[in-house]
């Protein structure tokens, strides 16, 4: 086995420089290589979420997006879905800070009268095995709000006096989930396009 290089100042500086330069170049190259596919994967996820939460449409909802202002100067992105030019549903990308961990994002589809069509989780960091039961692939808990109109359906978990069954042992996640829908519903009824 070859003997190690001596730890002289020049040797150390040179080695670290070469190691970091090679690493940086490689990573830059990989970043360029994966940038396109990552963007495509994200766009595909959004489009899939829109298709999941609104009825069949024939327009391109992401070309007709508009913003809905909400409190604290923030706004929500809305994707209107049309069939033969008629509005069939609006997918709204909404979020909540009321969850168990940090802010999480969901997509909610509303019929023009404000009835919830369906929901899809965009991203979250809730506890695996507990809070993630709100994901469609982990259970059908989230389906209970489908087809409900928040005008006659209290968007709060039962513990807080509402109509929504919470997830066992994940009340915070359940609260966050309905809070996000509530935020989107209020914004949509206030300023959304209904036709």
């Amino acid at each position: 086995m070859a003997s190690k290089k001596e730890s002289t100042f020049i040797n150390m500086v040179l080695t670290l420089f070469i190691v970091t330069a090679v690493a940086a170049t490689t990573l830059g190259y990989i970043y360029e290589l994966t940038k396109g596919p990552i963007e495509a994967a994200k766009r595909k996820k959004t489009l899939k979420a829109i298709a999941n939460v609104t009825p069949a449409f024939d327009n391109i909802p992401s070309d007709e997006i508009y913003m809905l202002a909400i409190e604290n100067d923030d706004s929500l992105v809305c994707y209107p879905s049309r069939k033969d030019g008629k509005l069939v549903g609006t997918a709204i990308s909404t979020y909540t800070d009321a969850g168990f961990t940090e802010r999480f994002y969901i997509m909610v589809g509303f019929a023009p009268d404000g009835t919830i069509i369906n929901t899809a989780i965009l991203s979250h960091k809730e506890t695996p095995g507990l809070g993630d039961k709100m994901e469609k692939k982990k259970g059908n808990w989230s389906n209970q709000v489908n087809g409900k109109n928040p005008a006659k359906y209290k968007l709060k978990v039962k513990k807080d006096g509402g109509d929504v069954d919470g997830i066992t042992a994940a009340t915070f996640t359940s609260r966050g989930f309905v809070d996000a829908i509530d935020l989107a519903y209020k914004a949509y009824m206030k300023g959304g396009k209904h036709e």
Partner: protein
Amino acid sequence: MSKLKIFTKGFLKENPVFVLLLGMCPVLGVTTSAENGLGMGLATTFVLLMSNIVVSLIKSFIPDKVRIPSYIVIIASFVTIVELTMQAFLPELFDSLGIFIPLIVVNCVILGRAEAFASKNSVLDSILDGLGMGLGFALALTILGALREILGSGAIFGINVYSGDGALVFVLAPGAFIVLGYLIALSNKLNKKLYNK
């Protein structure tokens, strides 16, 4: 040490999780289900294998005093490569594992093998060591994840085994410690029997 022994020692005799007790952070954190354990284990195996190869290749060019920073840069680069590639081509897997991937950088199994093995041995031996240790790590994580999933959610690899909610504690952090403790005891017993230590 024979080539076969270098490869197989990671599974039981020097299992990184049950015997060396290295890399406990991802071990306790991600093993809420068998699938997460397996995914994390395989991602770690890949990084471990690649970093072992590179460290072994350049070992004679690295002055002793800067070897640790050099190894860390190499490991972090591979982790980033895994993260970007997974995000681009396996978005489904990335959704469930994404937040754990950066944890691989601070996994001491990888730095430990670079320092204790790859920096002193040939490339071929380092490949065998990386594969063996990585797969041993993946095996341990999968077993731990499977047990916690069965006890905690009544399922394995997402397929329901029995109905009901299971014992919640096993999905949460304390369950990880409890199950890991029993598994370490079991592997100690097995090791004593097999190797007469």
